[in-house]
């Protein structure tokens, strides 16, 4: 217990000039869960990527079991007993669980594969740690929780006694998170050292034995987690000030219904049912928060509303007009605007300058386009105005957006989508991946739109965000809206709904936590599509 598994000393890593880690010290002991806490961009992942050999530190030393080691690649790290479960799973979807695991371990029958031996070992290890993994299933058919367990299994398979998990609960339901934690506890009791990267305080408090807090690449705190450790204490170390943004005074009377959806059905890219009869209304002057674990149909719902995905049945009425037959262009003209989830892939043309990115939605309006030519001067001016109004940090309108920081890229989208006073604004994970300042800015923008009378539909997997600015909260599960609740009704209710549990009382909740260790919930998103919506509920009773 006293001999540390990992000791990082004075780790500094800059990406050209900007330091991501500045003289960071970090120690991990066997048989403990070590929380690595910090905001987005604080340098947590960078630090662990250094330990895992994905980056090399500019300076600083890595000691493994008190022996100085240099780790040049993930392969080195794995050989040294370090395993990492990334935020985005590093699994090849078309391959089976066994094949995925074989990728990372040397074969005894080299150059041929030794599938049978690996398969047997998977079954054995899976039993020891109660991971419940089918070795022959293709990864594409597994739920998110199952995929995560495959990742953990992979690390164990490679003989890892140091396990790094990067934001592991971001994609899990509260129930699945509990399952994960109980697996982590088993591993800890088995003497493994576990690093849990997170920005969620509750999580750290509930599972971590120790915590190291990073802010802007610097360690701002290090403490043992005890019953006395408070959220406030950790927050201060994490953000340097007590900011839980105050958006109070938001209660304003809401107006009539702007968008009314009922019985909406649609399929996802793979042809599976993604929306299974969604009914929902969004009103003038309100923010409707759409909560739910990623992949329960939120993305498809937004696509159907904006018109880039076709619905199979159901109605959408927008300000009294039938939205269904309208083309995306007509919906844009009618005032439906959209802040997409992945701004770099579906929100911006990364190679283009700010100017042209700002006119994507209205390049053919008389304002921007003359009878023949686009009005270059007008476009230039508009960009300058927007850059000033939204305080976009840039050298000028002709700068390609790929040169901008994430926050400023998001501002370009905000300027474009909000500049023309949308009637309906769909904001998909609008603050994902942004730093604190940009996050606050984006939330204020949404509130401003609301104040201006727009109907705002905000999709978010972050309950903090949902509760901060929503007037009502709709919870999406398995392609349906399971319920619409008021923020006052509390997080537990929303958490339950997110897990697909509609009938909540104190008793039930306890049982969920109790049973989950033995029978991991299958209510994950991928499996959810094929499952009968009632099933998880039944299983938990």
């Amino acid at each position, binding site marked *: 217990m006293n001999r540390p598994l990992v000791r990082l000393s004075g780790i500094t890593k800059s990406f050209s000039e900007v330091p991501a880690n500045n003289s960071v010290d970090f120690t991990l002991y066997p048989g403990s869960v070590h929380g690595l806490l910090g905001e987005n961009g604080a340098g947590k992942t960078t630090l662990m990527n250094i330990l895992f050999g994905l*980056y090399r530190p500019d300076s600083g030393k890595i000691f493994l079991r008190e022996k100085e080691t240099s780790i040049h690649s*993930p392969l080195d790290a794995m050989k040294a007993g370090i395993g*990492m479960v*990334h935020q985005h799973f590093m*699994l*090849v979807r078309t*391959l089976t669980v066994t094949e995925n695991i074989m*990728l990372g371990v040397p074969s005894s029958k080299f150059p041929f594969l030794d599938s049978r031996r690996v398969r047997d070992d998977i079954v054995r290890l899976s039993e020891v740690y109660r991971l419940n993994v089918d070795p022959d299933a293709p990864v594409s058919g597994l739920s998110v929780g199952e995929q995560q367990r495959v990742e953990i299994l992979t690390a164990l398979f490679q003989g890892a006694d140091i396990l790094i998990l990067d934001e592991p609960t971001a994609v899990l339901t509260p129930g699945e998170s509990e399952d994960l934690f109980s697996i982590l506890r088993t591993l800890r009791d088995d003497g493994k050292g576990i690093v849990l990267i997170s920005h969620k305080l509750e999580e750290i408090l509930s599972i971590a034995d120790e915590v190291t807090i990073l802010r802007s690449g610097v360690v701002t705190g290090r403490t043992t987690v005890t019953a006395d450790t408070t959220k406030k204490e950790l927050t201060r170390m994490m953000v340097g000030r007590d900011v839980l943004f105050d958006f109070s005074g938001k209660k304003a009377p809401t107006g009539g219904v702007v968008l009314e959806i009922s019985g909406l059905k649609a399929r996802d890219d793979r042809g599976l049912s993604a929306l299974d009869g969604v009914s929902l209304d969004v009103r003038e002057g309100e923010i409707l928060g759409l909560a739910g674990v990623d992949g329960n149909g939120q993305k498809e719902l937004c696509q159907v509303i904006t018109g880039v995905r076709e619905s199979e049945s159901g109605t959408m009425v927008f300000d009294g007009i039938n939205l269904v037959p309208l083309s995306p262009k007509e919906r844009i003209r009618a005032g439906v605007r959209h802040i997409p989830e992945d701004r770099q892939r579906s929100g911006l043309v990364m190679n283009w300058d700010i100017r042209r990115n700002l006119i994507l939605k209205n390049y053919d309006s008389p304002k921007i386009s003359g009878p023949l030519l686009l009005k270059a001067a007008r476009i230039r001016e508009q960009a300058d105005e927007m850059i000033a109004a939204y305080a976009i940090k840039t050298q000028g309108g002709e700068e390609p957006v790929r040169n901008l920081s994430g926050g400023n890229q998001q501002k370009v989208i905000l300027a474009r989508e909000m500049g023309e006073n949308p009637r309906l604004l769909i904001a998909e994970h609008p603050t994902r991946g942004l730093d604190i300042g940009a996050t606050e800015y984006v939330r204020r923008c949404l509130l401003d739109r609301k104040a201006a009378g727009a109907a705002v539909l905000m999709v978010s997997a972050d309950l903090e965000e949902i509760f901060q600015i929503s007037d009502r909260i709709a919870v999406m599960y398995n392609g349906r809206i399971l319920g619409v609740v008021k923020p006052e009704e509390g997080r537990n209710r929303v958490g339950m709904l997110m897990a697909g549990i509609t009938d909540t009382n104190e008793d039930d909740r306890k049982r969920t936590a109790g049973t989950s260790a033995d029978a991991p919930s299958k209510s994950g998103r991928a499996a959810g599509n094929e499952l009968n919506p009632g099933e998880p509920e039944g299983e938990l009773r």
Partner: protein
Amino acid sequence: MSGIWSVDFLVSLLAGTLRISTPILIPALGEIYTQRSGILNLGVEGLMIMGALCGFMGAFFSGSLWFGLFCAVLGGAVFSLIMGFLSITVGANQVIAGTALTILGTGFASFIYREAFGIRKLPPIVETFQSIRFPILSDIPVIGPILFSHNILVYLGWILVFVTWIVLEKTVFGLKVKAVGEYPKAADAKGIRVALIRYACVVIGGMYAGLGGAFMTLGFMDTYMDHMIAGRGFIAVSVVIFARWDPRRALWAALLFGGANALQMRLQAMGMGVPPQFLLALPYVLTIIVLVLVSKKVAFPSAFTVPYFRGDK
């Protein structure tokens, strides 16, 4: 001369099909490695013409056909490194890189040939690979001439189908190739060297293409001509898509194209009423039809034509 439906015609057609499918089959097998690893190498055409030239020159100057084959494989491998560099190290657009490779290969082969042989009345020739006589088997009527009357390269093509299948499905390397083509980042995280695997696949593809090109000069004709590959490299690429990256299916697809070609040659020789140009265009028309039929349905490797750099999003 007997009609279309005679046994002689069928035997000659099928034997021809097997022979003519070889220079499509072998490059296609190589391209399966390349595409499985996530790289579309449209430069097969250029690699084949280089292989054809290297093979010819190697055999011509050494007097050994086997040395010629060795030169062709080596030439294909070396030349394919350009594609590897552009698509892997540089991360360039693979369509353009492939086009560059084809232009470069065509120009280079033609230049070297002219420099080496000048302009002659009679083209330099080599003694080609002779058909193998299998005891007993070759004498079986019908089947003998169809299956057992070919030169070694035809059989090599069939062996390579099996080898390619084994390598891709049963070996560690094959599994890594698939992982790299589907999700390079995951492969990287598992300690697989993505660039190395992709280079290996591109070079293997180059070797196969070189071999396929050499079939044209050493096993089919006995001399080198500038336009002798005539789009076979591109046909091989569509064979790969048609075969959905499976070597066994590639054999059937290559036979289909070989069949169209063999039919064309025989009908032309028989002086049918159809203008020869229509028959000559047949394989190309078939390529478009095949591509149209399968492209919608097939699932391309996820990281197809996407370069990978560690640290990229």
